[in-house]
């Protein structure tokens, strides 16, 4: 089995490599480059997916030594496939399977534009290799190389349409931000490296973070990792690159970046906080070690790590969704929504980390529950965010605009796309029976567990606030996506582009349909997912800590009734998944009743009532007006502004022209960047005096340096 899985993994890598090769081989025949390149990517993803599932079913870790980069500090390329890595393997390959087929259709447009698509295809395939390398790496050096390569490749993919200034700018902001993030990650790893006796292998990290590792260093590692990975994950306030970079990338790349790539940051966070810094059983030593009970000898992380994650997650979720709410650029909206969803994932992760750090008898079960919430939401987000970005790509493909105010009425011209997009919207709004609901439900349960069992009052307070915040987030997300679907697809087209929209090609529809089907399937089959993820969830809490999986159609909850009892199986708090289908049954009942009471329906088609006028698209509610009340409610965050400029022919009676402008100011707004830029240009102008061309000045530097050294250092 393991052999099979490993071979499949190799095949998967080989396919991506073939994808790159074929892209270059067919660089003169772009159609073929696209076809072969993406087909290889699809095959690679599917085999990788199969490998991941096999690895998850056979949860012993697999190690592969590739080669050593340099002996010193044991920097090398080694692979560890443990359940956590296997889970992220699953995520990446799932994303790949969904998007790659779609990409065949989507990339055709670039041929017409005369772009060098073979580069796109090659980069796309290489992107997978780097992402896989990130999650499989068992060495800090390999991790950093893969991580930075992943950033670089994605940067080049983002900059694919580099003729546009906006794209170039977004790309630079992205790569620079992520580079700084990498610096933090590097620092974090290097602290671990010291603890590990100057060894860069993760195995040594694990061994070295026991008792001898000081609390201060432990906290520093976590904080550095949080900043570093948080930057990649788009957590507030390190998120600013994300809404710029994701929208400008080709849509299938956006789908991958939002759906898959930013998840690797979560991987890094989990890897560091649970695994590398994890509460390993050790001899004796640090202050945070538990001395009694079942956890005796475990070094526990402080629980404020989890609290910090909760706060960061909550802020990201709320602000992310608020900015998504007011966005009119469809892809930007999706990007902001990614920030929101990363926040929600962090909520689950935070709760898991808190319970992981508490020596409670039922902590393992609650850790698993919260971790499941996080992981399942991660999986779900991969599916529905890919779906939505692909949908946005389809719209862009058909109308050449991402602006919601230019769209409308697409449900008639793009029936299938609309249907699939709607599924994505419902899923991301956490509505039953789609998968988003299940993970939101799990997150609620995890948070309720925190409020219920958190020993400190501030655990409860933060838990409650988060519960409220998450509800608010859910409602806002629903509003956001109603807006997106309602103004994008419903009513009359608002521009010529939307009027002339057409349904997209079969390959694109196939990708969309697959993802849409998955949103529903994952919702109904959540218990199966739990069974699959079990090894990944139990990796740090010990086998059997997720006993609640047995009834196939039900999910565990924190089972608040039995405090002190860790058995979360069955019983009162469970959600029966079959019931998700109940509304469907009752829809039919409703139809039956209507038929019964009213006989056969007689339907006449007529105009929409518009107070006697003919309804024009300009009379419709558009996306701005739709969220206007909410924008006003949340004006303390969104800082909306409006400017009305009226020019008169004869004041004040005859108006010649009214200019109206409105928008919001971001909290981390362009003023902040402008400030930074001003500072830089200040540096530029003022400090350049240092190098003003005068040779005498230059000589005086030498003199002064010499004098300083002579006077002070002797």
């Amino acid at each position, binding site marked *: 089995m393991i052999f099979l899985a490993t071979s499949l993994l190799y095949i998967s890598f080989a396919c991506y490599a073939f994808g790159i090769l074929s892209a270059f081989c067919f660089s003169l025949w772009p159609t073929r480059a696209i076809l072969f390149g993406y087909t290889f990517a699809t095959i690679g993803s599917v085999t990788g997916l199969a490998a991941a599932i096999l690895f998850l079913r056979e949860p012993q870790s697999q190690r592969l030594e590739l080669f050593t980069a340099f002996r010193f500090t044991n920097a090398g390329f080694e692979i560890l496939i443990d359940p956590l890595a296997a889970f992220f393997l699953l995520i990446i390959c799932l994303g790949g399977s969904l998007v790659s087929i779609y990409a065949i259709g989507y990339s055709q447009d670039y041929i017409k534009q005369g772009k060098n698509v073979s580069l796109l295809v090659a980069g796309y395939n290489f992107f997978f290799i780097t992402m896989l390398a990130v999650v499989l790496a068992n060495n800090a050096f390999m991790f950093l190389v893969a991580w930075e390569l992943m950033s670089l490749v994605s940067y080049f993919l983002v900059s694919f349409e580099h003729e546009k200034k906006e794209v170039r700018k977004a790309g630079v902001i992205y790569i620079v931000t992520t580079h700084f993030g990498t*610096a933090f990650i590097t620092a974090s790893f290097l602290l671990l490296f010291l603890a590990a006796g100057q060894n860069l292998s993760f195995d040594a990290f694990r061994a070295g973070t026991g008792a001898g590792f000081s609390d201060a260093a432990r906290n520093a590692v976590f904080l550095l990792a949080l900043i570093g990975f948080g930057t990649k994950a788009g957590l507030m306030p390190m998120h600013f690159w994300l809404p710029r970079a994701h929208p400008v990338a080709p849509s299938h790349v956006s789908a991958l970046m939002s759906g898959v790539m930013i998840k690797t940051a979560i991987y890094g966070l989990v890897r560091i906080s649970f695994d590398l810094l994890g509460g390993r059983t050790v001899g004796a030593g640090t202050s945070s070690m538990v001395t009694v009970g079942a956890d005796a000898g475990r070094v526990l992380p402080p629980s404020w790590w989890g609290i910090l994650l909760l706060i960061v997650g909550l802020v990201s979720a709320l602000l992310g969704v608020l900015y998504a709410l007011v966005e009119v650029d469809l892809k930007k909206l999706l990007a902001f929504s990614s920030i929101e969803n990363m926040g929600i994932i962090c909520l689950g992760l935070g709760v898991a980390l808190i319970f992981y750090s508490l020596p409670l008898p039922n902590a393992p079960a609650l850790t698993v529950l919260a971790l499941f919430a996080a992981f399942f939401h991660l999986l779900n987000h991969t599916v529905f965010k890919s779906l939505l970005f692909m949908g946005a790509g389809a719209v862009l493909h058909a109308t050449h605009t991402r602006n919601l105010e230019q769209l409308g009425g697409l449900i008639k011209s793009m029936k299938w796309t609309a249907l699939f997009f709607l599924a994505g919207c419902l899923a991301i709004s956490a509505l039953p029976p789609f998968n988003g609901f299940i993970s939101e439900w799990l997150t609620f349960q995890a948070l309720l567990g925190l409020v219920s069992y958190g020993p400190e009052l501030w655990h409860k307070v933060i838990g409650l606030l988060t519960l409220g915040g998450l509800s608010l987030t859910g409602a806002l997300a629903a509003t956001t996506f109603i807006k997106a679907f309602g103004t994008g697809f419903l009513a009359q087209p608002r521009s010529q582009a939307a009027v002339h929209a057409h349904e997209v090609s079969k390959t694109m529809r196939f990708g969309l349909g697959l993802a849409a089907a998955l949103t529903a399937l994952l919702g109904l089959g959540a218990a199966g997912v739990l069974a699959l993820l079990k090894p990944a969830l139990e990796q740090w809490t010990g086998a059997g800590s997720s006993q609640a999986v047995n009834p196939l159609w039900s999910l565990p909850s924190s089972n608040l009734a039995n405090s002190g009892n860790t058995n979360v199986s069955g019983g009162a708090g469970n959600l029966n998944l079959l019931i998700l289908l109940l509304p469907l049954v009752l829809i039919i009942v409703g139809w039956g009743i209507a038929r019964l009471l009213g006989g056969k329906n007689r339907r006449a088609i007529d105009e929409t009532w518009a107070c006697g006028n003919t309804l024009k698209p300009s009379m419709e509610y558009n996306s701005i007006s739709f969220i206007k009340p909410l924008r006003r409610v949340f004006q303390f965050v969104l800082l909306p502004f409006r400017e009305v400029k009226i020019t008169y022919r004869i004041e004040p009676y005859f108006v010649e022209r009214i200019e109206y402008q409105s928008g919001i100011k971001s909290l981390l707004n362009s003023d902040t960047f402008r400030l930074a830029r001003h500072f830089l240009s200040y540096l*530029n102008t003022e400090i350049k005096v240092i190098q003003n061309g005068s040779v005498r*000045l230059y000589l005086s530097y*030498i003199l002064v340096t*010499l004098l300083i050294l002579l006077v002070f250092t002797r």
Partner: protein
Amino acid sequence: MPAFLYLTLLPCLPLAFVALGLSRLHLRARQSTVIILAGTIGPVVATVMALVSAFNVFTAGPVVAGEGIFYLDALSALMLAVIALVSLLAVTYSIPYLNREMAHGVITISKLGWYYFWLNLLIPAMYATVIVNSLGITWVLVEATTLVSAPLVGFYGRKESLEATWKYIIIAMVGISFALLGILLTYVASLNNLPESGASLDWTFLLKNAASLDPALMKLAFIFILVGYGTKTGLAPMHTWLPDAHSQSPSPISALLSGALLNCALYGILRFNSLTKSAVGPEFSSGLLIIFGLLSIAFVIPFMIKQIDLKRLLAYSSVEHMGIIVLAVGIGGELGYFAAALHIFNHAIAKAFMFCVAGEVTERYHTRDIRQIRGIVHSAPLLGTFLFAGTLAVTGTPPFNVFVSEFLVITGAFASHNYWAAGLALALLGVIFASMLYHCVAMAFGRANELILPSDGASTVPVHPAMSLPDSSGASGFNLAAPHMPVQVASVSALSGGSSNEELALSGPDASGTWLDRAAFRRARTGLLTLDKPSLAARQTRPPKRRLAVEHIKTKSKSEQTNNRVALLILVLPVLTLLVLGLWVPSFVQDWANQVGAVLR
């Protein structure tokens, strides 16, 4: 073995005069090949020999040769290898570079001869610097490298290059004088403390007796050495000459200066650092080196952020990298020295490559002004790729080799508990990455013809040689608006063999538009080519921005195309080196770097 050592220096010197002599024979332009060949053979042969010597040293251990005049250990071998590889790149790249410069009429046969004359003096001087035993002779040779490289810096004979040369000579000579003071003091120390054994400046002697040298004197000596050689190495704040000199010289020479010559002065610092450490104890010199290292990294940032001159940008980056090396040495420890050794090599290759890429960009766009260069990936995809690869390599981004050594420097800083230095370095390197990449993206991406320039005056950095004055012995005719000139106003190229000053050959397919009046043209001749003093009217009424058509970047003569291709072909090997060494450092390289580390200790 010893025979090789002398021979390393030999091939170049006679050929220097051969090249110079040939250029005096009134050859026709076509026959410039002979000169190029004569000038190229020496360095190439020397490269082979130096590499063999270096290999010998690495495998067989340190060598004392030539009755104690020469001494080679792992550090010398590393430097030999660096100089060998960089000079190989420089001389091979010189061929297509100079061919095109000849074709553009920027340089004459006579200049070509001088070029190879000085180049063939510079390369053996550098080799000799790192293999002589006496630190005094090393000083003499470092000084000599300044003197023979100065004419190469001022090669184009423009105002800017003259200025750069002047600053280079003055500052480098002043600095080097201080280094001499440091050497004198070391000598005094050895006289003072070792009266019996007979004082000497020989490295073999000093190394043996370093521990018994007077600490007070050695401290003083090290200060002067650090300031002195630091000036030549380009450590801030003594680096001020470096951006000027490295940006004004022809690109192959820039590559040589940044890649090899800086290391020669660095070599002196490294040697004296070892001495000082055994005499004074490690804290003193380490502290100074860390401070100067960080200062060098920090100092360049404001100049890199809004740099408009491509080659200046790279020159500042050299300052930064010298800072990193010095930082690594200051950090010390097994890791620090290893990293320093690796970084010396990595930086040399990466920077030399990058300067060649810059040369290629300049050859195609006829300007070094970053604001005027757009869309390289469209006009020359391979060159664009190289530009990106080079930028990423130079900024220490995986998968390129500089990443490995920079990572090791930071790792070493952590290992020696210099957390602040490590954090600071990480942050500063991040900023440098940002600014370099910003410029790289600006140049590489976009479309070449989207370039929009204010037409009220070209930049202050227009200066491709093709727009410049010929040297005094050169031609006297001018051709306005040669086809490849991006800015019409500034598109003045010299044609050798033109008839008279007044006879202006106006030609070129897009020579329509506004012509310069004679007065403006004369101004141009006297050096104000770039119209950086636009007329008052022009300044007041800020004319609309002009869209420049750079379509003709692609339309080139056949020989020029060949030269372009050859140049790119030459650059393939270094970029592969950068890539491979970034992912995998072969174990023999590690062994060698370790040996160098042992010497640095």
